[in-house]
């Protein structure tokens, strides 16, 4: 059942269009991640849903009622801010109880709700501490509890993990998912981190240049991207453009072609972009007998302990492919200058239609900077 | 919620969110205060300066140029105005090295007494200028502290006349204005990273060169702020010339006050004020061509 409904949401700042005609729907209890490079409009979208930014046009509806023109304080939407925005002069208790206090709840109700929240976030006994006495991870959890405590219709999270170190980020990811599952609250989670988006979202909205590129479940977004940007942004891959020859083969020019698995909505003659995902390509010294096979030369290798990254030039396609291989103690390494074979299964080849807009791609270097 | 209360809430929201309503409160109230109580009255000065001064302080709203003719008719008033600006300049030139030195000291010292020493300068800001000025009377007088000390040492045989002279007045002005230089300079110097100065020295700069090439340019914002305040306040000084200066040392502020409060000649006081105000305006304009006025004014709010 559709719960949150966003319709043609647009925001312009002067001449700049931050968000353009974004529409999507979220079901009750769903966890949706919004992902895209910085400046793609994801935070602006979130702020419009929260009521902190007024849309230039479009509507936002929750449970059927239009909330587009309501000020933030009249919407029942909890927000977890990137820098937490905990009130420094209030205790953990007062922070978490704030939303309830604003709604005129009595002391007893506040106490019960806060106790419940503290149990969920596993911070019992922290009532009287001040935010500056808590660690980064603890502050993060208090911020989540504060956004949840007043039982909001919807919770929005704006890159809540970006200020934490890598290890903590990992565990907070599971923690947040657990809390969401426990409370069952509909959640929209903004991030620029593709791994976070893929691992956390029931559905993913991919934004670029203020436009919604795709709204789908993680598998489809990853496997069947609807725009070259989506394929490029999620995962690391090498791109070759070509033309669909038959429903299951793409002509890459110069006599090269690649077998693909058939997908609906494509007809021979379509211009497509083909993506070879690093993690789906395998490498061998003997010519493999099945799948798509390309000849290449190892140019560089990057030893990372349990894993080795090979950089392989494929002269026939004029691309360089990066292949990650797990190696055991006994495996011998390939060396730079060696001729190798690379293989990828037709069903692992990702392709997408090129429309005029997306012909200019985001370079992998740029995408890497966003990480 | 009934639809009526809902509508009332909506109206309340709308009003609280109305850009103009909110602008009028903040920042509008402060701007209104300044515009109504400073800018509007300033326009009255223009009007009054063309009115005729009647007998016994009466103001006759008849257009006349007599006030300006009187002002520019003899050298008396132009000289007073010029002298005021000159005194402002001289005071600034004395305050600058002295105030800079102490500001620099406070900015660079690692003494544990630093908070106290800084506090002592801030305290100067709090003590009214009238007290800090008149306090020099028992010091500079013929039987004052300075003369007694000098007589006792034997440096002089008879007391010097320091009070009611130009030097006496300058001492009072300089000391009362020193904090306006010390604090902005301190604020600027204390933000200079010691490593930057050390870097200059490792690159071969002597102490003097390092100061000249690094510290001084980086403390420029503080100096600019100090100069602005010192000059404007000194040129418009009222208390120092009245309490410490001699009869020959007339400055524009006491003269205007005299004409206004003593002679009740409001139109002439208005004309004097206007000319003086315009000259301050010109100084400020010249100042803004070299420095940022807002930044300089911020200098004292440390």
């Amino acid at each position: 059942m559709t719960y949150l409904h966003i319709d043609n949401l647009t925001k312009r700042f002067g001449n700049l269009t931050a968000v353009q005609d974004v529409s999507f729907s979220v079901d009750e209890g769903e966890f949706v991640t919004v992902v895209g490079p910085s400046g793609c409009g994801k935070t602006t979208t979130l702020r419009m849903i929260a009521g902190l930014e007024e849309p230039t046009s479009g509507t936002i509806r929750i449970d059927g009622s239009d909330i587009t023109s309501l000020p933030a304080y009249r919407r029942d939407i909890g927000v977890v801010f990137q820098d937490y925005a905990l009130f420094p002069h209030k205790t953990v208790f007062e922070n978490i109880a704030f939303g309830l206090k604003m709604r005129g709840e009595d002391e007893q109700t506040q106490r019960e709700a806060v106790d419940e929240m503290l149990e969920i976030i596993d911070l019992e006994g922290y009532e009287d501490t001040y935010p500056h006495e808590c660690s980064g991870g603890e502050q993060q959890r208090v911020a989540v509890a504060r956004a949840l405590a007043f039982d909001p219709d919807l919770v929005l999270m704006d890159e809540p993990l970006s200020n934490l170190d890598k290890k903590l980020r990992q565990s907070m990811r599971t923690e947040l998912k657990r809390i969401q599952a426990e409370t069952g609250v509909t959640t929209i989670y903004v991030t620029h981190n593709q791994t976070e988006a893929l691992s956390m979202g029931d559905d993913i909205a991919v934004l670029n240049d203020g436009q919604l590129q795709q709204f789908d479940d993680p598998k489809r977004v990853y496997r069947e991207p609807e725009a070259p940007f989506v394929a490029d942004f999620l995962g690391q891959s090498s791109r070759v453009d070509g033309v669909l020859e038959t429903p299951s083969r793409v002509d890459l020019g110069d006599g090269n072609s690649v077998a693909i698995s058939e997908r609906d909505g494509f007809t021979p003659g379509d211009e497509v972009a083909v993506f070879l995902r690093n993690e789906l390509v395998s490498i061998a010294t003997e010519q493999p007998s099945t799948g798509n096979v390309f000849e290449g030369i190892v140019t560089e290798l990057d030893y990372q302990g349990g894993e080795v990254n090979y950089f392989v030039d494929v002269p026939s396609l004029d691309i360089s492919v990066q292949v990650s291989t797990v190696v055991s103690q006994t495996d011998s390494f390939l060396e730079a200058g060696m001729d190798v074979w690379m293989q990828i299964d037709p069903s692992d080849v990702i392709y997408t239609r090129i429309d005029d807009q997306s012909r200019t791609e985001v370079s992998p270097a740029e995408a890497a900077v966003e990480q | 919620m009934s639809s009526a209360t809902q509508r009332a809430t909506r109206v309340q929201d709308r009003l609280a969110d109305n850009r103009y309503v909110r602008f009028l409160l903040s920042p509008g109230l402060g701007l209104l205060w300044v515009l109504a109580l400073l800018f509007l009255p300033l326009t009255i000065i223009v009007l009054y300066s063309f009115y005729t001064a009647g007998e016994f302080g009466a103001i006759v709203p008849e257009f006349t140029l007599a006030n300006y003719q009187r002002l520019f008719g003899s050298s008396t008033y132009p000289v007073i105005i010029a002298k005021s600006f000159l005194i402002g300049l001289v005071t600034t030139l004395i305050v600058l090295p002295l105030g800079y030195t102490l500001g620099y000291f406070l900015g660079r010292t690692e003494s544990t007494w630093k908070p106290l020493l800084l506090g002592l300068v801030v305290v100067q800001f709090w003590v009214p200028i009238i007290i800090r000025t008149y306090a020099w009377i028992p010091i500079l007088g013929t039987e004052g502290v300075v003369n007694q000390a000098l007589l006792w040492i034997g440096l002089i045989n008879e007391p010097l006349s320091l009070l009611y002279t130009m030097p006496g007045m300058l001492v009072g002005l300089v000391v009362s204005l020193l904090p306006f230089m010390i604090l902005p300079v301190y604020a600027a110097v204390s933000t200079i990273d010691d490593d930057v100065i050390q870097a200059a020295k490792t690159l071969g700069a002597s102490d003097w060169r390092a100061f000249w090439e690094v510290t001084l340019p980086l403390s420029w914002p503080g100096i600019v702020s100090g100069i602005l305040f010192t000059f404007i306040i000194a040129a418009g000084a009222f208390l120092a010339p009245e309490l410490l200066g001699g009869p020959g040392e007339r400055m524009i502020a006491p003269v205007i006050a005299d004409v206004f409060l003593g002679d009740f000649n409001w139109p002439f006081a208005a004309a004097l004020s206007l000319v003086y105000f315009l000259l301050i305006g010109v100084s400020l304009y010249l100042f803004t061509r070299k420095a940022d006025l807002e930044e300089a004014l911020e200098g004292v709010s440390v």
Partner: protein
Amino acid sequence: MTGQWNWRAVKLVSALVYVSMFVPLLVVVVNSFHPQRMASFPPSSLTLHWYGEFFADQMLLDAVWMSTKVGVATAICAGAVGTLSAMGFVRKQFPVKKGLVIVMLSPMLVPPVIVGLASTMFFTELGWERSILWLVTMHTLIALPYAFLIVRSRLFLFDESLEEAAQTLGADHLTTFREVTFPIISPAILTAMIISFVISFGEFTATQFWVSRETTTAPVVIYTMLETLITPKVNVLATLVLVITIAIPIAGMALQRWLASPTE
């Protein structure tokens, strides 16, 4: 080493500056205990005689009381108006903002003689008699830029997402200010109020245009006493003013320390 000598010279000049700033104040305080009418320094003995005379003089006590009342009222007005203005200037975008900041700060730039004279002409034209309200209104004008700058520099450091957080939690603008913004910036507002009090308490040059017989302030009385009858009571009054203008800010800062302690 030259560096050390340079530093010694800096210290010497600094010491001289301190001496020049504090010796006069010391002399005023000591002279208030001086037994003779015509003071020679240092006095041979000390007396509380002039304090006795001072506290018997209703006119002087009234002046100190008037200055205190005006100072407190100015602190409240300038604190409130300065805070509101600073909020607007930091948070809102509006045309010619840069120029309007200079308008806000202009009372610092216009010589006090002109501020005093222009407003007197203006109020007279409006038919407004000199009163304590007049004093408070104008002292607020003079203190406003300082209050504005102090609060504004605190607001520049203020994390606006705190206010947004409060709003998403259901606090309207007024509640957000009361619950979040005000408690956090209150130390700066207190500083602004203290400075406004001190400015009002000591202002003389413009104030001499604004006082009437009934609203004479302490600095004006000091000036009148210096111009007319030389009485050592002026030293007592000056000492008292000195103590008030130093003690109030120090007490205020202690209060501020105490207010700020939970978030420190």
